């Protein structure tokens, strides 16, 4: 089946999760959390969330503990940079 059935003559997208494609494919490293030093996980209170604040792709949840959606995480490593307790380590993907 070809693409003509989509009915469009130009490129457009509607706001939706994953509309830009599975950007997780782009990743060469992924973040791993050490919840024993992660502030909200350790204190069991909604606190810190610097990883959630700074994630440019909004793939980290504001939950206890914070979690990463690896379908869309591009592996930029900003979360790891901004984490004040060093709870996030970037780990190279296995190929």
């Amino acid at each position: 089946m070809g693409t003509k059935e989509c009915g469009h003559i130009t490129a457009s997208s509607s706001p939706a999760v994953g509309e830009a494609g599975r950007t997780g494919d782009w990743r060469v490293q992924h973040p791993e959390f050490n919840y024993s030093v992660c502030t909200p996980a350790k204190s069991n209170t909604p606190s810190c969330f610097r990883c959630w604040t700074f994630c440019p792709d909004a793939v980290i949840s504001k939950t206890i503990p914070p979690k990463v959606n690896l379908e869309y995480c591009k592996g930029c490593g900003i979360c790891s940079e901004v984490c004040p307790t060093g709870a996030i380590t970037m780990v190279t993907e296995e190929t």
Partner: protein
Amino acid sequence: MSSATSQKKNQSIRETRIMTANYAAAEAVKLCDVQVISAYPITPQSPVVEKLMEFIEQGEIDVEFVTVESEHSAITVCISASAVGARVFTASCANGLALMHEQLHWAAGSRLPIVMAIPNRAVAAPWNILNDQQDSISQRDTGWIQIYCRNSQEVLDSIIQAYKLAEDVMIPVMVCYDGYVLSHTLMPVEVPTAEEVKSFLPDYVPHTILDPDDPKNINPVTLADPRVNAEGVLCHGYFEIRYLLQEAHMRAIESVAKIGTEYGRLSGREYGILDHYRDEDADLLMVSMGSLASEAMDAVDRLRDEGMKVGIIHVRLYRPFPAEVVARAVQKTGCRGIAVIEKNVSYGYEGALCSDLKAALFDYDVPVFAHSYIAGLGGRDVKSSELYDALKKSCAYCDRPRDKQRKDQEWLNCRI
């Protein structure tokens, strides 16, 4: 009140008025219910916009005019306005048109039916404000349709048809006419009534609309391959979207002819893809675009009087290039050769029209010669006698054997 009444009365009868091609362009825009105009002044385009401003000031048209600081912004405003569903107009030429270049690709790729008037002018360097067609020819591959006009009447009629065409095939259209030679020359022009144009031109229905209630990202990064969107629909990759533009261009050739015929029923002036002058039995054809094709009529008459069978084919539609139509038209005359006289050059080769024409003749197996003449760059006057000399010179090649008919490119009246 009385002026409003007389104004209304004027709109209900056809009038023949004396006007320049620039004013004819403005009159056409006035008749087409254009909603947004954005343009930046550049000689010789300025009177188009000045006249439109006058219409707005006098309350004759209800248009949002957006003043901007450059041509790049002018076309960007047109793209945005067209994407939210407005019928839009702009005008530019020369270096101003060159400054629009990137956005011309955006307009065509977004399939927005923008109409732009181009009073053709030479592109610097060196600075020159006079006429040639290098400016629009340089925008040939941006994906816009290009129509060339021979007089003010054709400018008015072609802009009205351009909206119908653009909105039919969803491709932006440039209506090109020679700067000064046409843009500033007074000629009689019959102006159709507003009602007539309204009956000819339906409202603009956009294919995709930017609407806050239905948010969309238009022209997101689109990689080469098709992909499934969030709703699970397989969408085009960049390649497919570009193919659709090409497909629509090829379809537009037929649309131009259909719309030209329909306009003929409305106005009594039928338009086609080509215009012909005394070409039925010609041995030699002159092929050209714009005012040269009308100016050469005198030279052709003189040659005919002297017994030389010469005629003219004016290529009205340059992009999409009507290759089959042109090749068949040349074949039908039974001519032996062609002189392509044009006001542009694809540097390092020859006139752009000549190359396109030769490719069409080759493809449809029409074995006649085609000589490339470059004329009138930077407003260099092209006299009827010079056209006469050029055509006569090419005529002399008609009786030669096929392998002796090639002639080097020639720049008319180059005094180097």
